[in-house]
């Protein structure tokens, strides 16, 4: 399954070894235990963290008896909560503890269980871990004479509100999208899946960023081998920083040299839940508003969540249009080139004459003309993505109308070429998954060149090449072109058309789900009218 990855992984391990000494400065010794002396501990932590003005440290006396200190990073915590829920009960002895014996050996237990108004308070003795916790926004409470520190989960980081997903717009269906905060994202899933089968596993990846990576699945539905493979591939990643799930994707995908995405990323909680329910595994990284879904098959990339929430005729029709756009974005310019320069006799005579008339002033062969316009289109497209919103609209008007018109009048391109390329570009926007659209956008160029050399013959050779490559791809052990080939009749109901939900009683078999039945029983729809 992971042949291509092995080499890469071996390399990664070497990098890990080289980079290890770099950590020494940041971390304390991994086995260091806290000393009972408050001053030693505080100076140890300060030494490890260096000079940071946002590190707050306050000495005080617990219950007026024992020397203690709390430490936290002021920007990562909720200071109100620290003042009211932690400091106040510690400094001002609570009523129920007033008459009790508050000896040093009982004090930690007493603080955690009876004093602090906070549910996340734990003991920790390892210096290295304490430093990690404080860096993540927890508050440390260190008491003189005790070998352990109390850590309290006071992390409070600013996050943006849940908003509509930007990249996956739909007309019908839920409006929520994931945000950067992983806790919120998992909450969005939990809210849709109130079942004990929904499992979340977390790990930390990234030596500097220590990003929380979570992968979740539905127990009893997702295939065990896929879960283990995800776990294995994730745990072998050793990198300094992770900014986005895209980093992970590049480490865990099956074939890094393929133009086709082998992992799907989505911003939509509803889509993620639907995929979990089909037996897939979702991967999140703290700081990224995208979830990765594995394993994937190619047909997922032109499906949207809306296909399922709208009625099946509508869903099927829209999906058909989208597939057409997909094919268009790949082969349309190539077909145009081969028709014009190799087989104009295929076109109806009137149209062929019109095309020839349009091309009369254009000095170079069709393939060069199309390549020039395509490149111009790619530049325009990239420019519109990067420009500020206010300028973007102006540019697209200038680009499309003025430049296009001028190019035709100047004899740089024929009007029909411009139409063909425009159709192609619009077609490539109809593919819902950006990464898959990008793959086809890239592959358009070699096919165009093949068309310029061999005509239709070259186009077909190019397409066979691409299909053969796709048929040989696998995503976490699942053949990429399933359920078309290897064929699966239940799965085929959801490829070109979207069969009615009640007629798909089984989960897709190519994902090897542990439990295949989706509907509890076959619904007899003819009974509905007979009441």
């Amino acid at each position, binding site marked *: 399954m992971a042949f291509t990855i092995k080499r890469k992984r071996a390399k990664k391990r070497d990098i890990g070894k080289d980079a290890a000494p770099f950590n020494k400065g940041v971390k304390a010794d991994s086995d260091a235990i806290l000393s009972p002396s408050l001053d030693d501990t505080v100076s140890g932590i300060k030494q490890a963290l260096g000079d940071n003005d946002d590190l707050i440290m306050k000495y005080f006396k617990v219950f007026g008896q024992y020397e203690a200190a709390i430490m936290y990073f002021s920007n990562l915590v909720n200071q109100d909560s620290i003042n009211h829920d932690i400091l106040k009960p510690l400094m001002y002895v609570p009523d129920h503890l007033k008459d009790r014996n508050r000896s040093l050996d009982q004090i930690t237990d007493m603080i955690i269980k009876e004093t602090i108004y906070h549910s996340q308070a734990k003991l920790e003795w390892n210096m290295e871990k304490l430093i990690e916790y404080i860096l993540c926004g927890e508050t440390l409470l260190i008491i003189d004479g005790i070998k352990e520190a109390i850590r309290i989960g006071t992390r409070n980081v600013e996050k943006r509100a849940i908003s509509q997903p930007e990249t996956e717009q739909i007309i019908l269906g839920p409006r929520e999208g994931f945000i950067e905060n992983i806790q919120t994202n998992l909450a969005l899933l939990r809210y849709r899946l109130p079942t004990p089968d929904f499992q979340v596993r977390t790990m930390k990846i990234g030596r500097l960023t220590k990003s929380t990576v979570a992968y979740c699945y539905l127990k009893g539905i997702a295939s065990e081998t896929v879960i283990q493979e995800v776990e294995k591939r994730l745990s072998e990643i050793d990198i300094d920083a992770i900014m986005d799930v895209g980093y992970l994707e590049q480490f865990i995908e099956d074939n890094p040299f393929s133009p086709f995405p082998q992992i799907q990323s989505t911003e939509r909680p509803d889509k993620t839940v639907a995929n979990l329910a089909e037996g897939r595994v979702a991967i999140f990284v703290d700081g990224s508003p995208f979830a990765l879904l594995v394993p994937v098959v190619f047909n997922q990339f032109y499906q949207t969540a809306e296909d399922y929430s709208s009625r099946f005729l509508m869903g099927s029709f829209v999906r058909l249009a989208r597939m057409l756009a997909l094919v268009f974005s790949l082969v349309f310019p190539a077909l145009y080139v081969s028709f014009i320069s190799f087989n104009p*006799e*295929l076109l109806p005579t009137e149209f062929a004459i019109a095309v020839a008339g349009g091309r009369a002033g254009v000095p170079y062969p069709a393939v060069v003309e199309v390549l020039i316009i395509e490149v111009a289109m790619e530049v325009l497209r990239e420019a519109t993505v990067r420009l500020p919103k206010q300028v973007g609209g102006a540019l697209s008007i200038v680009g499309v109308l003025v430049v296009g018109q001028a190019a035709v009048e100047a004899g740089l391109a024929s009007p029909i070429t411009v139409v063909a390329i425009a159709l192609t570009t619009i077609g490539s926007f109809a593919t819902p998954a950006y990464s898959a659209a990008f793959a086809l956008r890239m592959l358009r160029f070699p096919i165009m060149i093949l068309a310029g050399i061999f005509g*239709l*013959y070259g186009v077909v*050779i190019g397409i066979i090449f691409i299909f053969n490559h796709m048929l*040989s791809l696998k995503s976490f052990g699942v053949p990429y072109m399933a359920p078309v*080939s290897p*064929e699966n009749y239940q799965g085929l109901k959801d490829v070109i058309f979207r069969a009615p939900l009640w007629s798909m009683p089984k989960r897709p078999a190519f994902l090897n789900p542990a439990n295949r039945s989706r509907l509890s029983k076959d619904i007899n729809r003819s009974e509905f009218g007979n009441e």
Partner: protein
Amino acid sequence: MDTRHITTTQAAAILISTIIGVGVLPLPLFAVQAGGTGAPLVTFLGMVLGAIGLFILTFLGIRHPQKTIITYSEDIIGKWFGRFCSLFVILFFFILTGLAAREFGEVVVAGVLQETPLEVTVIVMLLLACISCRNNINVFSYIHSFYLPMILAPVLIVVALSLKNANLLYLRPIIGTNLPHMFLGTLTISALFQGSFIVTMIIPSMKNPKKAIKASLWGISISGGLYLLLVIATVSVFGTEEMKQIFWPTLELARTTAVPGNVLQRLDVIFLAVWVTAVFTTLFSSYYFTIHSIKQLLNLPDQRMLSCFIFPFIFISAMLPQNLLQMYEFIKFVGRVGLLITIVYPGLLLTIDFFKNRGLKGSASQQT
């Protein structure tokens, strides 16, 4: 190793797409040359002969579900003699690969790319097969079943659209006139079914080798049915005398048909373009069979390097015939000789295997 992934449907698809290849283009001509108006009958007889060979191989495969003809021939007729015979099998498919690439190259150069050198089209086609051969046998089966609709559809569409020009009188008399000539023609046509030899390679990877019979039955009847349909359509549209003047009647049939609505003026170029897939799958199969067999004969661990290694040799063998006419003479000759390898040799193996087993059983029962 869990390599048993190929389903019965996939096995049938492999057979169909392997059998249907570039041979479809001159097929009606061969049939008419041999039998005149009896062309459909000749085709049918050729199909029956091809089916006999296929079923012999399938039975052999079911008797030895872990092995291909390269490995079980060693068990049946002895290690060295078996290897000696396997050498001929490999050589035959080696030449077949080259000829298929050459034949299609000729068609492309004559039909669409008049100014492109023949060598280039042949190399491109072979390169496509060569690179695809680096995959394992599961991907091999995925590729075949994926392209199946694209192989069946163009022929069916062309046949359906040409029916309005058909004249049933051209088909009579059904029996034909020249019987000994027809016999030779039957051999030529059945040589077009030689791709079915691939069944020996896929049985060891089938989920359920017992169902290979079903796959063979479907494979031969769909591909044979398509051949028959095509011969009937071309003969009924052109008539036997006109057909003898046409080199690739199938292509001509596509040329005379027009899509309703005047969307495209001519269909033959589109037909040829889509037909690249059918040729590719055939070429892919024989290429794959060649390197897979060499791998088994020499006990090599991997076939990936082999695929590139034999590429230049196949190309040279493809370029051996001097011209189109010589090539078709050569193809007919190789096809008929090949029947010795694809039907007679497996037949002998099956007989020997059968008697050997009975002998063993007999001696075993005597001992007990």
